[in-house]
């Protein structure tokens, strides 16, 4: 029997920009990429969900603050609470923080400049559904492009997250002023990951790096295992 293609949804909000790249990258990595409209109250049958980058609702009030109220976000929260795999990229990360699925908040970059370049990241966890193709201590290069990427949490919360090993990716060089150089963080259960860098823009060496595929292919593989487990 051919190995099953997992179904990975990508939510499009008004103002999402990277939904198509995410759909393309997931298809290239042998997933069935399923577009999900923000007004959908129930998710279709999915094995994982990606919240893409962009500027949902124009970043009004605070980035991610309004998208939190989209019907699809409520459905994604239920999906995550049931143990479903959820990956938030850039604006998707901001939405997951505002929705309370991930700890902390993303603030304006320390430099006040929009940062758009490839950045080296150090992998801190390789035992997650999002990082199984990486190794701890490995440096991977994935582009960032954001104005509000400075992750922040109060120091006592940061200590708790470090103790729980929830920091998954750190910037290997100064990027935006994030506390503890956090580039990506997961929930305690490890089924929700948010990161500011864009793995979907780095799945083809033609674009400068294919390291993003390490993250997305890990996700696709984990989603496929879930399909196989359900058969």
């Amino acid at each position, binding site marked *: 029997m051919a190995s099953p293609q997992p179904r990975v949804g990508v939510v499009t909000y008004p103002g999402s920009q990277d939904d198509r790249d995410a759909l393309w990258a997931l298809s290239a990595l042998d997933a069935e990429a399923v577009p999900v409209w923000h007004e959908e109250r129930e998710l279709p049958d999915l094995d994982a969900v990606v919240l893409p980058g962009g500027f949902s609702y124009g970043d009004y*009030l*605070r980035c991610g*603050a309004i998208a939190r109220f989209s019907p699809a976000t409520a459905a994604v929260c239920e999906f995550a609470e049931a143990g479903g795999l959820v990956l938030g990229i850039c604006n998707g990360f901001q939405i997951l923080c*505002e929705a309370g699925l991930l700890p*902390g*908040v993303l*603030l*304006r*970059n*320390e*430099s*006040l400049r929009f940062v758009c370049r490839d950045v080296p990241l150090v992998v801190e966890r390789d035992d997650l559904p999002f990082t199984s193709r990486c190794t701890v201590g490995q440096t991977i290069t994935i582009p960032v492009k954001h104005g509000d990427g*400075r992750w*922040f*949490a*109060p120091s006592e919360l940061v200590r708790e997250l470090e103790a729980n090993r929830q920091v998954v990716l750190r910037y290997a060089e100064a990027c935006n*002023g994030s506390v503890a150089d956090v580039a990506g963080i997961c929930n305690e259960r490890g089924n929700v990951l948010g990161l500011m860098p864009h793995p979907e823009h780095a799945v083809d060496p033609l674009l400068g790096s294919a390291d993003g595929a390490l993250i997305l292919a890990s996700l696709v593989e984990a989603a496929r295992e879930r399909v196989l487990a359900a058969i």
Partner: protein
Amino acid sequence: MKATVLVRPKQGILDPQGEAVESALEHLGFSVSGARVGKVVDLEVEAGDADEARAQVERMCEQLLANPLIESFEVEIHG
């Protein structure tokens, strides 16, 4: 009932916008320090009296208008 909400970055939170504004004011020749940039939200709320209006607007702040990790808020009710 008219209400005004002031949302401020909490003390200790780095506010690069405030720093940029402060430096621009210094360029203009003003001697300033401690500039912080927040937000103002004006709104009208249906309520029987000022206390009820305040309670409603405070709930709005807690649920949406301010992020308690990084922002403090102040509510003014204008009757």
